[in-house]
């Protein structure tokens, strides 16, 4: 019997000479997950372009007939599509920093915020939009960030992330969405309101401003544009090699996902559209996700809800289309314990959203771009809670 480790140079041996025997592959059948069949590359491309054209026409009709519901529906459809396309889920992007020191998600979030901020500032200078001061409630924002950030790790996604993963057929995310509804309902209940009022009352007398700069002053727009331009150009300089290297141009993953940074820019641009269209439908804030389940809950139980919250459910249609085109529309389940944890995480996410007045999309992607102090507090505590929970729960403090 020869030891393969003693071989020199080009010397080779057969399997029999090593004393090992060839084993047959396992006979156990491979379970193919049930799901919708992925269309061929050509069909997928055709469906994508036809859908893109239809959505653009719908938005165009909305502008012509001055019915902004169509435009908002198109915006949220596009948001759902691109979120799924890049797996733009804050829980995953943030946890990756702790799990694998992968900073791409964090940088993509920053790019989305800066892109949105640039547009808000420019449109404010041009007088196209009015930036309103958001609310400020320090303790609820901080507590909500902690609850939301912890819950999103257990749920496996924030509100938008859980929604697009649920449309893919991911059972834990479907359960998490149910938990989110339960959390929102808990926040709307009398004791939930009582708790929120109590937390609000603790910092009511602090009297902090709601925005870094007075949004009604000239400095707001200039500061937003300045921060955005400096931030974006600094990132371009830092990653100039990746941006300029033409060899990377076609290096997209085979699963049809889109690059995070491209999607981050698209999300920022969709934020521009949302802040222009929103006021026509009674919404002064740009993009958001928590107002979708909130509006649905209000509509079901109280019979009235903000129309924009119901229209925004086109997000799910966009996600479903993207998942189908990528062959990701597959039923996936998980052990019971994970499902219970996902529900518990969803409840925390839902309650955190109602306490903090928003979620990752509404508070970070939009709120940070509006220089809102409430959103900054919520976002920072949310990120820290996400990292702490990831470290303790997913990495076991290693």
């Amino acid at each position, binding site marked *: 019997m020869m030891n393969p480790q003693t071989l020199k140079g080009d010397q080779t041996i057969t399997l029999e000479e090593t004393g090992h025997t060839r084993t047959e592959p396992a006979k156990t059948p491979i379970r193919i997950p049930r799901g919708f069949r992925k269309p061929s590359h050509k069909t997928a491309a055709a469906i994508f372009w036809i859908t893109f054209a239809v959505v653009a026409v719908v938005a165009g009709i909305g502008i012509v007939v001055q019915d902004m519901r169509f435009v908002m529906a198109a915006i949220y459809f596009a948001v759902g599509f691109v979120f799924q396309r890049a797996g733009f889920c804050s829980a995953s992007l943030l946890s990756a920093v702790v799990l694998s020191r992968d900073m791409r998600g964090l940088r993509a979030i920053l790019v989305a915020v800066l892109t949105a901020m640039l547009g808000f*500032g420019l449109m404010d200078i041009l007088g196209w939009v*009015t930036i*309103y*001061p*958001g*609310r400020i409630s320090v303790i609820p924002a901080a507590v909500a960030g902690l609850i939301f950030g912890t819950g999103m790790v257990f749920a496996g996604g924030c509100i938008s992330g859980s929604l697009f993963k649920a449309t893919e057929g991911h059972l834990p995310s479907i359960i998490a969405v149910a938990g989110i509804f339960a959390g929102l309902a808990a926040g709307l209940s009398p004791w939930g*309101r009582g708790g*929120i009022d109590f937390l*609000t009352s603790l910092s009511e007398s602090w*009297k*902090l*401003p*709601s*925005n*870094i*700069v*007075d*949004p*009604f*002053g*000239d*400095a707001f727009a*200039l*500061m937003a*544009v*300045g*921060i*955005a*331009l*400096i*931030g*974006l*150009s*600094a990132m*371009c*300089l830092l990653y*100039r090699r990746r*941006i*300029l290297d*033409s060899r990377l141009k076609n290096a997209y993953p085979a699963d049809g996902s889109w690059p995070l940074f491209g999607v981050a820019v698209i999300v920022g641009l969709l934020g521009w559209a949302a802040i222009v269209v929103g*006021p026509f439908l*009674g*919404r*002064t*804030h740009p993009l*958001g996700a*928590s*107002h979708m389940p*909130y509006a649905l809950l209000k509509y079901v139980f109280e019979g009235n809800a*903000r129309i924009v919250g119901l229209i925004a459910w086109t997000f799910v249609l966009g996600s479903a289309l993207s998942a189908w085109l990528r062959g990701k529309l597959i039923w996936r389940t998980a052990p019971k314990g994970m499902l219970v944890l996902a529900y518990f995480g969803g409840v925390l996410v839902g309650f955190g*959203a*109602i306490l*903090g*007045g*928003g*979620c990752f999309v*509404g*508070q970070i992607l*939009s*709120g940070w771009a509006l220089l809102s102090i409430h959103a900054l507090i919520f976002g920072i505590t949310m990120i820290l809670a996400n990292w702490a929970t990831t470290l303790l729960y997913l990495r076991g403090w290693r």
Partner: protein
Amino acid sequence: MANKNRLSSIKKILFMVTVTAAMIMGIYSLTLAFVNVQWASISTSLIMRTATPEDSDKIEAAIGSETESDLVFVVIANLGECIEDAAAASIAVQNLSATPPFSDLQTSIRYMTAEDSDFKVIIEQNEIRQFPALLIAKKGGGVVRLVNKLDEKTILDTYQRYWGDSASTAETEYSIY
């Protein structure tokens, strides 16, 4: 190969020029922002009060004898300070209350100075620390306080934000994004 390298160099130069220009514009914008800065503070930001029982008392105090009006403007000036600003605010309120969108509402204006007997109560209840200040109180509930910036546009924007035709755009205390 040479052409490819040249193209690549041109691309690099264009990229650097664009990014540098963006950086310079950003620094310029930020400089201008700091020159014009009006840091948000409690004295410049708008505060909307929802009609809680406590606030109802404040509204009543602010309205005083004008309880029959739909909308009451309380222009508050401190004697010896910002007299000109207070006068300008009064003119802005006067002009505005006589024009749409307030034309369908019964409006009244009350001017207050330190000589008024309830001056101290109102500034304490409404936590006014700078003058001139404007309280816009609505009979149906809610009072908005404006400090420093009291031009017609700001007052109109405030009204539209909280009670006007586009009042639905106001994000309430429990609205979530």
